[in-house]
């Protein structure tokens, strides 16, 4: 293969853009897995659910997917809070989260996927929006707007999340719940309530990430599974619960995947994130910006 500089630059740029989207996908996981220690492997399933809601609304009313996802944000928040309540009562309280809690989330993942298959079949679905299609050409680069727009909104989402976590009282309480529940109690804050809010926010981000996903690529119910490995790899690499770390790790994985897809073929790309995950676990379990 003739080495092409253009190809390389384009792969790196699209990797960074996709990486920003991966960061949005992982942000919810960083919150639930990284901070709350809840191994929510069903997270990608909720993202696919978000994609399908954006799809339905887009097809029936022609509404923009991102606007739709912002409208259904409260519903996803409520769903997340509800799921956490069930999880807390059935598993965390009994101290059984390790085995049965995992099986619980796996069951949720499976139910969501099979239900979507039953209703929509396994056909790929896609949405319509003005920014899907055109490409921006600064210099030699090709930047499709369908990737650029989700990328920018993703970065905005993460900035907002980071602000909430570091500035607001609830956000600080969420950071604290990971470190010392007893101290929170002494401040007359109910750690369970804080965790419920945090998990609600985590699932709410899935609504946005779902809209981004269906803008970037056509979606079918089992697409979510590809994201499980990727999301955990980014989460661990980013240092479990550190949002800036998540962004850096997501872009790193985005670039490496994009390079792999460009130079070795797209069918090898899924192996990249797993390689990263194993390497990180073996070499530096605390991640890039570990706490």
């Amino acid at each position, binding site marked *: 293969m003739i080495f092409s500089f253009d190809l390389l630059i384009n792969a790196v740029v699209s990797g960074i853009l996709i990486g920003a989207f991966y960061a949005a996908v992982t942000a919810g996981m960083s919150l639930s897995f990284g901070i709350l220690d809840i191994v929510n492997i069903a997270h990608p399933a909720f993202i696919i659910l978000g994609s399908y809601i954006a799809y339905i609304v887009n097809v029936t009313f022609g509404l923009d997917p991102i606007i739709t996802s912002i409208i259904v944000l409260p519903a996803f928040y409520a769903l997340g809070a509800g799921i956490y309540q*069930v999880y807390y009562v059935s598993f965390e309280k009994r101290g059984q989260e390790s085995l049965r809690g995992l099986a619980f989330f796996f*069951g949720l993942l499976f139910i969501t996927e099979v239900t979507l298959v039953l209703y929509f079949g396994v056909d790929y679905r896609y949405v319509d929006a003005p920014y899907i299609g055109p490409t921006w050409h600064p210099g030699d680069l090709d930047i499709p707007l369908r990737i650029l727009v989700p990328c920018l909104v993703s970065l905005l989402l993460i900035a907002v999340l980071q602000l909430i976590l570091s500035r607001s009282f609830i956000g600080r309480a969420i950071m604290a719940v990971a470190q010392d529940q007893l101290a929170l109690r002494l401040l007359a804050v109910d750690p369970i309530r804080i965790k419920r809010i945090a998990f609600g926010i985590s699932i709410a981000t899935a609504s946005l990430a779902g809209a981004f996903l269906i803008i970037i690529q056509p979606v079918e119910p089992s697409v979510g599974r590809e994201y499980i490995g990727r999301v955990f790899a980014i989460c661990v690499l980013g240092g479990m619960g550190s949002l800036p770390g998540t962004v850096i790790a997501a872009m790193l994985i985005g670039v490496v995947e994009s390079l792999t897809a460009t130079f070795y073929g797209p069918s090898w790309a899924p192996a990249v994130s797993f390689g990263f995950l194993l390497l990180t676990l073996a070499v530096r379990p605390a991640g890039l910006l*570990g706490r």
Partner: protein
Amino acid sequence: MRSDLFAVLCVVVGGAVFAAVLALGNDYYFFAGYVVLQYVVLSTAWNILGGYCGYVNFGSAAFFALGAYATVAMHRLDPMPIPVVVILGGVVSGVVGFGMGYLTLRLRGAFFAIATLALAVVLQTLIVNWGYVGGSRGAYVVRPETIAPFGSYIRYLFLIMMLLAVGAVTAARAVERSRLGYGFATIRDDELAAEASGVPTLRLKLIATTISGALMGMAGAPFPYYIGFLQPSSAFGLDYTVNSIAMPLIGGTTSWVGPLIGAVLLGSLQQVATVTISSAVNLLIVGFLLVGFVIVAPNGIIGLARTYIQHRPVEELGRRRLDVDAHGSAPGSTS
């Protein structure tokens, strides 16, 4: 009861089931029964690591598929009798299980679960890109119509799967009652305390991943002959993973009886539902049963039965105290 006596009993029961299915006089029952038995092996294998040690394996389908693809590779090279490929499939999956465990078991339990999930994706990627075994197009494995002295080939396959199921259940029961099984139980109940008391936890966990992986590979090895046409998407199907987790959890994870009950009940239910309703709906049923059981009856059918008989709640095994201080420690550390 001693293990060898139990094995003899299992063989007798297995033989009786085979004779009963034969008496039904319809080969369809062999096809259906094969799948149920395959799930007995898979869920028993999963339970050795998941139920006894408390480590969740989300990669059952990957180990199963590895066994199946080992057969396809052998079939392309030089077709061999099925007992040989079963052993081969077991060796391949056992080695992968060992490697997998070696890489990830030093870490907290959740990371192992995630790594197994990712392993499934990566192995599928490798198989899809490996042209020799058919790649994404799939591979045909033509089974002979008949085989002496069994008549139709499916009876032979059924018998092999029956032997595997008997072997798996006997092995699980033997493990459960040996030093090994007690070691596993200490890991499940409190790994730190076990480590501190001198239990060689890493070695035990590696033994568990190897046995569990090998059994899953063995269950997968005859599969290409059963299905006739093997595709990565069918061999790595999510239904194997979810079933091998759901069946032990629904049956009860602390004893060999649990996965057996779960697999026979759920497996038969699915066979009936596939014929009468649809295959997608029956997977949905499994999903709801899994979630329902882990919430309402954490000790599965065995737990329910025991409570009913003894009128007192079963002591919650695998219980871990939620330590407020320990909760905040950096996740991912080996500690």
